[in-house]
């Protein structure tokens, strides 16, 4: 007797098959990160009817259109306040924000620090590809100093943000970073983040060969993945203020913050009775 089990059957169940193939470029890591999120959700046994994904605008943000669940593809930078409204209107929902780096900390930076401050009960997955992919690869606040982009052809001279530092300083209770190569760890971190009350953030460093890698001597996704392989090191508990990423420099991965403090829902005294 022979039984066949096809693994991808699992992911296929949670993806809108009728929208495949997705728009992401060959070698782009967004699909990989999305896959990790879905595995975490499935493994966590979440009722998908009670999970909602919110995103802004960008290549990463397109993910909301590919998952089979209530999903909201909103405006650039405003996904977090939208998600805040959604969560507070129906606290039974598990609300996940799937966001690009530009969406989250460039135009969306204010909402990011305030949602973290409030310890709003939302899990954020940020695909950081060091640039604005969707609009053709301009520099942004996560672009490493020195990197070439379509608006910094002779090298970006701005200092860059470390997203974990910003999240931690603003009050996030869970902060982790992995690359698109650290898939088991990424999945685990997302699983952990999903269980935390309050504001949790998982950053996934991801290739964007088409517009970022191309100008920075890593023209394929594979080049970027190999860079992650050689340049990354795992340092759980590292000080989030010290995990900045320089151009083609070291990538410190790991879980940086995992603390407890009352979440917004708890502080606001939400309970089933008064709702």
């Amino acid at each position: 007797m022979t039984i066949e089990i096809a693994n991808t059957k699992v992911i296929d169940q949670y993806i809108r098959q009728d929208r495949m193939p997705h728009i992401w470029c060959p070698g782009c890591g967004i699909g990989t990160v999305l896959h990790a999120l879905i595995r975490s959700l499935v493994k966590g046994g979440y009722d998908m009817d009670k999970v909602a994904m919110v995103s802004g605008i960008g290549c990463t943000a397109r993910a909301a259109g590919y998952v089979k669940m209530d999903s909201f593809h909103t405006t650039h930078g405003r996904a977090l306040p939208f998600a805040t409204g959604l969560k507070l209107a129906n606290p039974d929902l598990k609300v996940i924000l799937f966001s690009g780096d530009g969406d989250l900390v460039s135009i969306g930076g204010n909402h990011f620090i305030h949602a973290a401050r409030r310890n709003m009960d939302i899990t954020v997955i940020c695909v950081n590809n060091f640039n604005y992919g969707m609009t053709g690869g301009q520099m942004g606040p996560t672009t490493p100093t020195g990197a070439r982009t379509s608006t910094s052809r002779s090298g970006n001279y701005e200092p860059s943000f470390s997203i974990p530092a910003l999240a931690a300083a603003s009050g996030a209770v869970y902060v982790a970073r992995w690359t698109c190569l650290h898939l088991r760890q990424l999945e685990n971190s997302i699983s952990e983040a999903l269980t935390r009350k309050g504001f949790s953030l998982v950053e996934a460093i991801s290739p964007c060969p088409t517009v970022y890698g191309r100008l920075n001597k890593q023209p394929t996704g594979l080049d970027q993945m190999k860079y992650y392989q050689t340049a990354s090191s795992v340092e759980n508990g590292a000080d989030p203020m010290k995990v900045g990423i320089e151009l083609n420099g070291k990538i410190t991965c790991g879980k940086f913050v995992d603390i407890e403090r009352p979440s917004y829902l708890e502080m606001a005294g939400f309970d089933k009775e008064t709702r």
Partner: protein
Amino acid sequence: MESQVVLGGFGGQGIILAGFILGQASAIYDHQSATFTQDYGPEARGGACRAQVVISDGTISYPYVQNPTAMAVMSQEAFTKYTPELARVKNPILIIDEDLVKPANYTAKYYKIAATRIAREMGRPNIANIVMLGFLIGVTGVASAESVKQSIRDAVPKGTEELNMRAFEQGYSQGIEAIKAN
């Protein structure tokens, strides 16, 4: 006299650049009027894309291709999507990349070249667009070869000019031959 040229393929093949080069050659070096426009989707790579070049010795009011006089297609999707427009025109010139397009149900005459294969053989798959452009110029003469070559030199990254010249020549000479064979 107005030529209306369409180049079709998928994102990443350099279709748009080829269209720009042709438009620039006509406008700046052939001293014609020439508009170049493009259609593309949200994808940075993949997805059907199209370049439209209208070349005229008068002024161009309508800057889009209405009745394509020549069309070069480099993907099956582009073939399916754009070639029906050829029906509007008498004796349009269709060119396909023979490895990428199967011209099913297309009954009229067409030209073919293995642009992508040639480019790969030259060691740079991404100059298939220039091979195709050369072939298009060879077959149609919508712009002068010299002008197009000058336009290529302006448009391609420094250091790749010679390679691109060779790609153009390859396509161009095959185009001239194809015409002769006609």
